[in-house]
């Protein structure tokens, strides 16, 4: 069979062909929405038309077989119309109100996770991990599965003071919004990379490699035509490894994950915030990373017990103070918590007023 003729620079298919008729008709004319249950909501247009959304979680890593099953459900209940959220949830777009309950019933019967709307834990944004990335220093899918199994009821039922956005990044490249999440796991290295001089000389551009270091820890080594790393300056970011693979940063025995908290994206009430370090390190502990899961559950529980309604994790911590956060959560405060990279001026306390 001969191949069809390739086309270039056509861009993505135009979204309009994928919109349900009720959305096309009321595009830009929505009046309000209501969350009906943890997994369903309705949007009502100025015309009075309605579109119902049924949301289910997904592991993001989806097989074609599962996508076809999702498509079958979409055809059975919503004329084949569906979308995905920016947090990798699946949304069935139901125009016929009478089909919402039967769809939810069939989804639950088939063990789909219906939920994630409103002040809850939504799907975890995560990266490829050992499944598909060369720079991963932990697995992402496995940690996500362990956390979501444990927090399942916070997706499908239980309310929290506000949304809690969790993310997992399998290295500091952070292909996800880890740096601005309520609670996030980020994999970190802790040892200076090992330099394979012979291959560095063969494969790498030395000036580019030297320039890749954010702390100027790398110097050329004319003798070996390779580089040397100043161990006192190296912060193990791994950027040199990206630029020059024979600088080997991976260390299975000493790599692991840190937990950061208090970030947010939206401008609601307070400005968007970076996540800050809560726990500097846990050893990689596959397949279930139990200490990581327990630590996240602890932070979530303390937040749920102490935050005011509508406060995000970061807003709650800022109101009570970080010294209070460490006290309430029982997390140890260490040298790693004090910034000695780019944010020291912003983060040291410059007031005699604080809590004991």
């Amino acid at each position, binding site marked *: 069979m001969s191949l069809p003729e390739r086309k270039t620079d056509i861009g993505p298919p135009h979204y309009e062909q994928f919109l349900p008729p009720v959305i096309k008709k009321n595009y830009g004319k929505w009046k309000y*929405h209501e969350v009906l249950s943890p997994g369903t909501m309705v949007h009502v247009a100025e015309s009075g038309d309605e579109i119902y959304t049924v949301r289910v979680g997904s592991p993001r890593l989806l097989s074609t077989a599962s996508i*076809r099953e999702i498509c079958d459900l979409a055809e059975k209940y919503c004329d084949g119309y569906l979308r995905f959220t920016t947090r990798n949830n699946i949304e069935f777009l139901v125009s016929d109100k009478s089909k919402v309950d039967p769809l939810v019933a069939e989804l639950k019967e088939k063990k789909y996770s219906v939920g994630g709307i409103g002040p809850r834990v939504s799907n975890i944004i995560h990266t490829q991990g050992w499944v598909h990335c060369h720079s991963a220093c932990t697995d992402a899918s496995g940690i996500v599965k362990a956390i979501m199994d444990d927090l399942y009821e916070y997706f499908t039922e239980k309310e929290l003071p506000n949304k809690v956005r969790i993310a997992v990044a399998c290295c500091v490249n952070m292909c996800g919004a880890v740096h601005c999440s309520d609670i996030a796991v980020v994999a970190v290295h802790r040892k200076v990379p090992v330099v394979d001089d012979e291959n560095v000389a063969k494969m790498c551009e030395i000036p580019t490699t030297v320039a890749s270091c954010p702390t100027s820890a790398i110097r050329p080594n004319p003798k070996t035509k390779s580089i040397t790393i100043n161990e006192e300056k190296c912060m193990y970011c791994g950027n040199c490894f990206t630029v020059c693979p024979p600088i080997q940063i991976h260390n299975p025995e000493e790599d692991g994950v840190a937990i950061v908290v208090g970030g947010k994206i939206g*401008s609601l009430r307070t400005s968007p915030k970076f996540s800050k370090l809560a726990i500097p390190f846990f050893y990689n502990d596959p397949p279930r990373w139990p200490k990581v899961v327990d630590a996240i559950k602890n932070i979530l529980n303390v937040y749920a017990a102490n935050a005011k309604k509508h406060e995000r994790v970061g807003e709650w911590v800022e109101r009570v103070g970080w010294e209070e956060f460490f006290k309430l959560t029982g997390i140890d405060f260490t040298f790693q918590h004090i910034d000695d990279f780019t944010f020291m001026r912003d983060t040291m306390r410059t007031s005699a007023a604080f809590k004991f």
Partner: protein
Amino acid sequence: MSLKTWPSFVTEIKKAAQSSSMPQMADDELGQLEKSYNTKRGYWKHGGIVGVLGYGGGVIGRYSSLPDEFPGIAHFHTVRLNQPSGFFYTAEALRMVCDIWDKYGSGLTNLHGSTGDLVLLGTTTENLEPLFAEYSSRGWDLGGSGSAMRTPSCCVGMARCEWANIDAMDICNSMTQHFQDELHRPAFPYKFKIKVSGCACDCVAAIARADLSIIGTWKDNIQVDQAEVKKYADAGMDIQAEIVDMCPTSCISYDNGEIKINDAQCTRCMHCISKMTKALKPGKEKGATILVGSKAPIVVGSLLSWVIVPFIECKPPYDELKDLAEKMIEWWDDNAKPRERIGELIEAKGMRPFLEAIGVPPQPQQVKEPRKDPFFFWSESDFKK
């Protein structure tokens, strides 16, 4: 652990082996992953040089470092397909994507990748050209990778959200079409990401994850429906505590069952609107705030985007927006070192050269506060009367 469980990625890998025409790919993917779980390390090599003829992006080379043990994933390249704006699909369209992928790949996907692409995980070098012919002839093109424009993405916007101040999906699609060459043929110092959110809730994380963040806003007054305000109160909402006391600028008051807003003091943060969706709506004079520079920690720490243009009208064909984006990219492309993002370049060169290059004047909305130290630059042009 609760009795109910989150969907399993391992199940997905097993299912992929059942539907793909090349079951050994997913089988070996699972085998290698299992090994990683035992040894606590990954077994993927750095990306190699693969792609489709004429393009420099959209395919990321991936090879197992254990090809003898796991021959099915000796080649396991990623293909990025440019997603439709807003991630809307029909079952028919998704099935077509799956049929082609089962024929040429592992049967594994990401819906979606972190940047927004529909990601196909795992194919061989020899399958790249046929796969591209099959997809492109049916209306699907590749996304960005490498030192290039990356696939723009956006929130659901006007398709299903009453807060959309701009047509995020149309802007995203229009920008994507405008920058096809920059997307497919890597000519930049590093990646460049564009994200479009309809309001300050920022569901696509534009402010944290895009070199160019376009966020919808308005200039006039919040629209208030007092009858609906009353219904919220009747239904038990503590409007004083939940709305008035949480307003960051104290510009809302609630007296005698009515909400009053001092709109001149409002920063349009979206708190009150998002909590009283039936009673409050954004104003009518809509547009976008343009912010620049956000990125993840590599290389010199994370950045959030900075406000550059406080307000710009966003009407199709979005010429003003495109022109602004082009000027930003040109200045960055002319000045940046390899692997330097635009935010880092602005830090290194200063905000003034950037603003002058794109023709935007200094404005108080751009800063949280003015500079603190008495060290500042003067240019020749500052001395002219």
